[in-house]
């Protein structure tokens, strides 16, 4: 198991930041482990979700933001549903991704690339254009063989449109993204 030297790496403002952005009272987490026991992704996480909570409490910013777990979290909200202290754990995981993204920590590049391709597609067309999204993802990651086997299953069924579904208000959507970037400069 990875061990962390608590005294060398404490960032005292980190927990406050996460509390403020998530609106959750993190000090209430008493490490019962319900979230980890409920989390379907525990087997694939490098740090189980309850431990992520503890690391946030103890100001271990770098260890948390460098983890795979925050990118692999599927937002299934099992943790939130079962936390006895009413902590919205899934929301905390979301906020950790926000901070990691802003500060340039990206452990799971492919997951982030997929999210980015998705949002770019929405920004361009107003709705997701699935084939365009996949092409963009392949360009970003170089993973040409991703899901190649699914094409022959979907195309004959007409399940993937070859053309984007542009909406009339697509400029309004592009403006939402633009203003968001300006606000967060």
């Amino acid at each position: 198991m990875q061990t962390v030297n608590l005294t060398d790496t404490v960032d005292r403002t980190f927990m406050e930041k996460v509390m403020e952005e998530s609106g959750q009272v993190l000090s209430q987490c008493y490490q019962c482990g319900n979230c980890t026991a409920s989390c379907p992704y525990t087997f694939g996480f490098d740090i189980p979700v309850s431990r992520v909570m503890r690391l946030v409490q103890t100001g271990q910013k770098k260890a948390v933001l460098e983890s795979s777990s925050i990118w692999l979290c599927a937002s299934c909200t099992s943790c939130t549903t079962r936390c006895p202290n009413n902590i919205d754990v899934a929301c905390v995981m979301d906020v950790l991704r926000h901070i990691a993204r802003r500060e340039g920590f990206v452990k799971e590049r492919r997951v982030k690339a997929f999210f980015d391709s998705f949002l770019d597609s929405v920004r361009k067309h107003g709705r997701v254009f699935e084939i365009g999204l996949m092409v963009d993802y392949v360009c970003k990651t170089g993973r040409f063989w991703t899901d190649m086997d699914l094409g022959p299953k979907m195309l004959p069924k007409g399940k993937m449109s070859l053309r984007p579904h542009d909406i009339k208000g697509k400029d309004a959507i592009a403006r939402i993204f633009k203003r968001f970037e300006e606000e967060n400069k």
Partner: protein
Amino acid sequence: MSKLSYAYYPGCSGQGTSMEYEASTRGLCEALDIELKEIPDWSCCGSTPAHACDHVLSAALSGRNLALAADMGEDCVLTPCPSCLTNLKNAGRHIAHSDDFKAKVNKLLDEPINEVPDVKSVLQILFEDLGPEGLKDKILKPLKGLKVVTYYGCILTRPPKLMEFDSEENPISMDELMKAAGAEVLPFPLKTECCGASHGVARKDLVMKLSGKLLDMAAQLGADAVVTACPLCQMNLDLRQGQVNQANKTSYKLPVFYYTQLLGWAMGLPQAQLGLDKLCVDPMPALNGIAKKEDAA
């Protein structure tokens, strides 16, 4: 009863990977005299990628659609997709409860949001407003002898304080509708387990394990089919079933229906409206099995 009518948010996947869910939802609602008024020029809610990026951005993408629905004069929006449902509900909740958050969202939008309509899933309306009883006399071809497991996925009823529908640990709405349509519903212990959600592309290895567990359990129970209400769950279990088989050395051929398809089938809706030909695992053996069991009886 006066005609039920709602603003309708189809969601992006309904135009592509889950077009059969969209078609069967519309067909079913029409047959049940529930009017779905599509939100004009609706846009993507941003799904998981948006809320994983920023909550204000996510709420603005969803909020635009809520505002359009309010402009239509509707006070309730329906959507078939649990992911859209979560995003729309979350946005509405936060905008309504925090002026500060609302102001941040409005800063991103062309027009500020005033009213925030309620948001519900189509399943919720069918279960709560119509009810299994209201369905019974419409069933022309009961799903007799069809053994199904109902798979709700993780977010349709969770977290309970946000979703306010059915049970977060043991949901029964689809079970009851399926029973009303004559199917045999097997007790499925993984009703709300995660199928791997949107990581199918980036981390397929993880999804193969999670979706594999669901198919293993359904098969062990002797189910003829899985019934879902979520485009992402359906895609992971149906479209990716071949990949799951390959990864886990299994050979399942379990059809994965949308509940709207099976209800529509039992109500005798035309096949074209149900989009059965869009499913990857051939559903016909299971459906033909119903007819055979009927003959034998």
